[in-house]
Each structure stands twice: as C-alpha cells, then as structure tokens.
C-alpha cells in the first residue's frame, strides 16, 4: 500500500483540517465533534440541510457545503458512518428556525446513526426530516437485502434540494423536492480496481488484470457480476441498460447525465464514457439537457466510474441551474 498519509488514525482529521484551511471563505470546521458547516450558518429562515457518512468519497459531502447546497456535512472515519453526536451538533449548527433536512445514503450504518441523531435533535426541539437516497439499480433484490444503496444520485439530490432551501422553501417542500429527485434518478457503477482502506492496509477485494466488477457501490464492496474487461462503449451500454429499463426512461425525456469517476479514473476516460452515453440516450429519444462529469462521489483510489441519469422537469432544471458556491461545485455566483 502506497498512500500520501501520515498515521492512518489521523487521515480524516488531517484531511478535514486541510480542507478547512483551503476553503475558509466557504466553510468553517468544528474539530470535536467533527463537522463541516457553512461559514454563514445558521441562515435564518432557511432550511438547513445536513448530510454525511463515511470519509473516502471526497468531495462528497464536505465539498458540497456552502451557498445553495448543504448547510453541513458530517464526515465519519473512512467508509464508516459518523456517530450520532456530531450529526446532532451539525444539525443544531445549521438550524435557522426553519427546520433541518437530513439527506442519508441508504447504508445500514448511515441510516441507523442518522435515525438516532434525528431522535436526539427532535428531543431538543429541532424539527428534522430525513430523506434516504437509494438510486443504485445494481441491487436487484431489494426485498431480501438492506435495499438499494444511495450512490451518485445523492450529489444531484443535495444540489437540487439545496437550491430549494436557498430560495426559501419550507422543510416539507425541500424534503418533497429531495424525494422527487431521488425517485427520478438511477445509477450504476463499475470498478476496474479495488481500493485500499488506510487502516486495513489491504485491498477490499481482488480483481484480475483483465476483470471488471459491474454494479459496485462506493466502498469497494463487490457488485452484481464480474466480467472480462470490455471497450468503454460496451461498458457504457452495460451500465445504461439497467438504468433506462428501471425507471423507466422513455423517448421524449429530458435528463441530466452524470458521469462520475470513482477516484482513480482520469477525466480523459470519463469523457469517452460521457460521449457514448449521450449517443445511447439519443438513440432512445432521450435528450441530455444538463450534465456533470468528474470525480464527485469516489471510493478512495478505486479505478472505475458510475453513470447516473436523472429525469428532469422544469422546476428541477431551474433548481439545478440555481447559483451554488461550494468547494466542488460553483456556478452563477
């Protein structure tokens, strides 16, 4: 294992300290309990949005804290949910009197810790609503598993819900928009290599030189099937098929296409995938009207990518276009 780290125990604290220093114009950081919060929080009358989860997915979630997106992010240890205490503290820090929305990726640990935190915050008189994202179509049997996982679509939920909060929507309205985005987005991922959790020191799984794993989540956990490496275009088609048939998307739809890198795949490859994904969607009569390409929800140094397709309507398009000023997404301001 070669990594640019010091003591593995200090990976998250040191990284967040650097993040805070680099983006002091946008965020401030509480180091104990650990959370990242908008520099201007709490914003009176605006719904605060808190997300979080294990570290190792950067820029998710800390990179999305700021105007027009998250009020706070709570980073746990690498790939491990934060405990309820910092979630409660972050919830209080963003409460401007309009209530707080928790956006939680559907992973058992995240859901349990946010659930406990929401109970504790409610006991302190803060109105909390929770939206659990579960956009991963790789999980076929959601009845006999912990359910579909929250993956790439989470970024889109956070952006659009954040814009709704910023324009002054109520807690119920912001939660409804978040639910609507989650209901209209589907994601599928592929891994070319595993990733190495710093304190584990060994790859989370092994893949042969000529093998890829289809349907991975964001923790290096194995996915739906293991197949021989194929050209990029064939992989794009393999990822898009279950996405398009699941919602289902249909001819005439306007969509946001999000091609996300898992951390170890260069942009040059992501754009090859984006190019063909647009072609496949066009051949089905689906128009890509907005897009996002880059490393936004990662799995440490894993080589791989995910494709998310979000069916847009006029309101969600407008909210996507609304100004945002965070470390990882900035436009219009």
């Amino acid at each position, binding site marked *: 294992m070669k990594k640019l780290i010091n003591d593995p125990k200090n990976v998250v604290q040191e990284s967040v300290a650097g993040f805070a220093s680099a983006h002091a114009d946008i965020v401030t950081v509480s180091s104990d309990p650990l959370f990242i919060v908008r520099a201007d929080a709490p914003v009176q009358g605006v719904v605060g949005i808190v997300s979080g989860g294990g570290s190792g997915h950067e820029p998710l979630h800390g990179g999305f804290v700021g105007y027009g997106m998250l009020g706070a992010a709570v980073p*746990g*240890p*690498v*790939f*491990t*949910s*934060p*405990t*309820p*205490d910092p979630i409660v503290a972050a919830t209080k820090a963003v409460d401007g009197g309009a209530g707080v929305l928790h956006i939680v990726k559907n*992973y*058992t*640990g995240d859901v*349990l*810790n946010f*659930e*406990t935190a929401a109970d504790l915050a409610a006991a302190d008189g803060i109105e909390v609503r929770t939206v659990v994202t579960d956009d991963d179509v*790789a*999980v076929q*049997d959601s009845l*006999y*598993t*912990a359910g579909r*996982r929250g993956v790439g679509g989470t970024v889109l939920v956070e952006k659009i819900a954040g814009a709704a909060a910023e324009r002054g929507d109520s807690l119920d309205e912001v939660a409804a928009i978040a639910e609507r985005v989650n209901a209209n987005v589907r994601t599928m991922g592929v891994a070319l290599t595993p990733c190495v*959790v710093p*304190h*584990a020191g*060994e790859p*989370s799984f092994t893949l042969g030189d000529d093998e890829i794993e289809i349907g991975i*989540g964001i*923790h*290096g*956990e*194995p*996915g739906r099937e293991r197949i021989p490496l194929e050209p990029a275009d064939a992989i794009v088609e393999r990822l898009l098929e279950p996405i398009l048939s699941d919602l289902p998307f249909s001819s005439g739809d306007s969509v946001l296409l999000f091609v996300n890198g898992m951390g170890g795949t260069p942009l040059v490859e992501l754009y090859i995938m984006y190019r063909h994904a647009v072609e496949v969607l066009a051949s089905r009569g689906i128009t890509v009207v907005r897009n996002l390409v880059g490393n936004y929800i990662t799995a440490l140094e894993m080589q791989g990518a995910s494709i998310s397709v979000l069916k847009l309507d006029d309101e969600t398009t407008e909210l996507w276009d609304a100004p945002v000023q965070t470390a990882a997404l900035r436009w219009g301001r």
Partner: protein
Amino acid sequence: MTLGTDWAIAWIRRSADVVAEHRVELITLDREIGDGDHGENLDRGFSAVVAKLDTLPEGSTPADVFKLVATTLISTVGGASGPLFGTAYLKAAGAVAGREDLDSASLVDLLTAARDGVVLRGKAAVGDKTMIDAWTPAVDSAARAAEGGQDEKSVLEAAAQAAETGARDTEPLVAHKGRASYLGERAVGHRDPGAQSSSLILRAAVEVAG
C-alpha cells in the same frame, strides 16, 4: 451466588480485552463480506468505555454500568455496530434497572432485552446472517437453563455456547441485512463478523463470573 456491579464491570473490561485481541480477525471477517472496519470500530468503542469506567460513582448498579457502555458505544463506534451494540446495552440496562444483584432470571431478562433492542434497531431476523444469529440462540439457551434451575454461571455458559454455535452457523448463509446482503451467494462460506464479536462478548461474561 448472584452477580453484581463488580461482575458487570469485569465483563465489560474482559470484553474490551477480547475485542482488542480479536481486532484483526474481526477486520478480516468484515473485509471478506463487508467493508473491513468492524474490529477497528469495536476496539475504538470498548477502549473508550474502559476509559470511562473509573468515572462510575460509588454504589453504581449493573444497570448504571450498562447505560455508560451504551452511551459511550453509541457516541464512539459509528457504522452499524455503534447503534446496534449501543441499543443492546441500553435495553439491557433498562431490563435490570434498580437491581443490585442479578440472579439467573435477571440474566435472562438482560439478554432478552439486549437482543430485542438489536432487532428493534436493525430489523433482522434469525437466518439473515447478522449478530441476531448469535443472540437469539443465546437467549433461548439461557432461558432454558434458567428454567431448569441452573445457576448464574451456567446460564451464561449456555448463552455463550449457543452464541458460538450460532456464529459458526452463519457461514453457509446468504445475508439478508447489512452490507453483506449485496453479495448474494458470494457471502456463503464466510462467518458474519457481528455474530462473531457477539459470541466473543457473551463468552467474556462467563469468564468473569465467579
């Protein structure tokens, strides 16, 4: 012979030692079918618990001990294990509140409440390849031992043995809860790390009982 606060504290200290001794084993089990953090997280949690045991005031009851364990684990472990183990100790504390010495029946109440707490939070059933596969046989065996008039140590021994068998019996199962559930058939042949750590903790309870 009943078991009091000294036993409760000794159980928790022994649990912390056992978790530390088996840290790498638990990480390895979890890496095979999960995300490889179980040993790390439990070790961090129980170390924090041990550091707090000295703050317990004179005259504390077993319930006070378990409540301290619960709040500390919930605030230090993270992942799914934090709320699950934390809730187990919290409900255990509630079940024996006000009792200074625990007899066989009280131990069954304690174990039953702990198991019910885990089910309440995690919604797993027997056969889902989770810690419940260790806890439920443990509760059932303990209850049978208590009904048969056995003493406290024998009740705990029955629980520990059943938990060990239950943990081992998770190996052929397909997981229906937690992160291993995404693996389908590929989880077969691997022992559930939460069931394993649960059996270690229940074994620790016997080791320090008189």
